[in-house]
């Protein structure tokens, strides 16, 4: 049994992270992170040193991707969030899904308007992979 269990809980008022002790009898709750802003997707990335990502979707001030390098004790904003090219004419309305990619530090984001973005550096830079999908509900990756 792993030493610590991490739960990431996305809510309408931010992200909460619970750390469970070895016996799973007690959990310490941290947060909210991105307080007051809806979190629709979180990603616990256990590759490498481990990171925790969350999409912070503010209808007023825009979308952010939050990242924690200590599994949920502190969060900061990634250098950028998915964004359409200026001449595309569309604006990001939501980040519905985050998923770890096949390569180390690769992150995928399913967004509204329906498009799939990819980051290969842990969320600091994003590129659009597919921009004409139906609305995205989930993103899953496997190397087969």
């Amino acid at each position, binding site marked *: 049994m792993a030493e610590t269990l991490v739960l990431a809980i996305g809510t309408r008022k931010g992200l909460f992270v619970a750390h469970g002790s070895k016996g799973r009898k007690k959990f310490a709750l941290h947060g909210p992170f991105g307080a007051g802003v809806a979190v629709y997707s979180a990603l616990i990335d256990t590759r490498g040193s481990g990171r925790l990502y969350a999409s912070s979707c503010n*209808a*007023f*001030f*825009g979308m952010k991707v939050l990242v924690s390098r200590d599994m949920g004790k502190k969060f900061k*904003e990634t250098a950028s*969030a998915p*964004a*359409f*090219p*200026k001449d*595309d*004419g*569309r*604006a*990001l309305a939501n980040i519905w899904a985050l998923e770890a990619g096949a390569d180390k530090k690769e992150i995928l984001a399913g967004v509204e308007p329906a498009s799939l973005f990819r980051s290969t550096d842990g969320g600091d830079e994003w590129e659009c992979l597919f921009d004409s999908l139906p609305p995205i509900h989930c993103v899953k990756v496997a190397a087969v």
Partner: protein
Amino acid sequence: MVVWPVAPVLRSAFSGSRRLRSGRWQRIMRLIMAITLFIPPPLRPECGGAAELVVEADTVQAALLAIAASHPGLYRGVCHETGAVRRHINLFVNNDHIRDRQGLDTPLVAGDTLCILPAVSGG
């Protein structure tokens, strides 16, 4: 009240002047041309907690581009990636909403205030 656009007149009068290009005069000109940008509390973390920023700009668009360079997170909170102002954000030049003037091309003169005012909603 007529607000005389001091900065363009001075800039024109001293155009090409070596004195104007000196650091001291540049600082004076920046003060003369300055407008004040009021930041709402939710966006203050994007500019180090500041409630106001002083910006040198002659249009609303120029003021937004200035903050895009100096505080990109603040700019992203006001405008989305197309460059348009976000739906729930209102920009007021002094007492006028920019949609009642010339939108992003609304001219600014020294001493103007540009207020970022998010809409309030809920139930």
